[in-house]
């Protein structure tokens, strides 16, 4: 491949350098050297423009939005409290208690929070929302209808 070009041009620029050059992530000296090489080497210039075309095409991919605003669903699933002061508060109280009682209180609190977070009451709305709002119109979202549906149950099981 490289013998297609006269020897003075070599060594050619690596993909790493070309890619970083495209992203304007090279420091000044390296960038200038590379630019000088590009001005005399069609092979590296072609490679750079192939990278640039790919970047431009990727930028033109339409962005796919969720079919519904998820804000309501997410807010409905938020646990009741988040506050940076909470750990300090509990740490303060725990310090006043004997170790065993403090630990028991922590575990009890954890269980209570866990139940509140992951109990069926909290999990069901999400699942129901998926069924209602994610109907996957065949033909518009998937190339293969079968493959859209077959592993759904399995995947959902994995995430939860």
């Amino acid at each position, binding site marked *: 491949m490289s013998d297609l070009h006269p020897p003075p041009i070599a060594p050619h620029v690596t993909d790493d350098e070309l*890619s970083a050059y495209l992203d304007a992530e090279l420091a000044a000296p390296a960038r200038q050297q590379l630019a000088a090489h590009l001005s005399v080497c069609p092979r590296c210039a072609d490679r750079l423009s192939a990278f640039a075309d790919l970047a431009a095409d990727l930028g033109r991919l339409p962005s796919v939005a969720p079919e519904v605003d998820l804000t309501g*669903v997410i807010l409905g699933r938020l646990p009741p409290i988040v506050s940076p002061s909470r750990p300090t508060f509990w740490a303060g109280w725990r310090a006043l208690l004997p170790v065993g009682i403090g630990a028991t209180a922590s575990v009890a609190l954890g269980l209570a929070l866990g139940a509140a977070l992951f109990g069926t009451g909290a999990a069901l709305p999400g699942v129901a929302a998926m069924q209602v709002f994610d109907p996957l119109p065949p033909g518009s979202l998937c190339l293969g209808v079968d493959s859209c549906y077959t592993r759904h149950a399995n*995947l*959902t099981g994995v995430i939860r």
Partner: protein
Amino acid sequence: MDAKSDDAARDRALALAARGGDRQAFASLVRRHQARLFNFLLRLLGRREVAMDLTQDTFLKAWSALPDWQPAARFSTWLFQIGRNAAFDVLRRQQRIDFVSYDAGNPADEPGDSAPSPEQQYADRQRLRLLERALAALPAEQREILLLRELEDMSYAELAVTLGINEGTVKSRLARARAAALLHYRDYTGEHRDE
């Protein structure tokens, strides 16, 4: 650039409020980021239901983790970090997800189209479809870094934080991803035969 830092400043204010327990501030963050996060997860995993689930899970995790969020960190980078970690948990447990290519959508969805001819529209759609196939053929790590770079416009420093790797690895992974994507892309378009 300015818009990007304005967005970051607004996010920071909202995240600070949300960290103090302000649900409406968190709701604003969800509204601001759900579409981009969903689009990223969908293009990474290829499955709409999984992307919907993970988008919700990501925000729930973000809410719980907000006390650990540092205001110096860009909120969107932090959010995408949570989202991609959740996505890779799924990928690891699943070994691999059969990526489903979804339709690139209606040409009307594409912004800034100045009424190209039907032939041109068809050619563009075909091209994007082939690009989606090329993306789908990549290993998830390569697809991920390309999406974050080209769709989210992340710098190498932001990519390093989001992916938990150093900038040298960002540089080489991105180059490998581009080379591999081009290879698949040309394979599908038949361009490689010209070389």
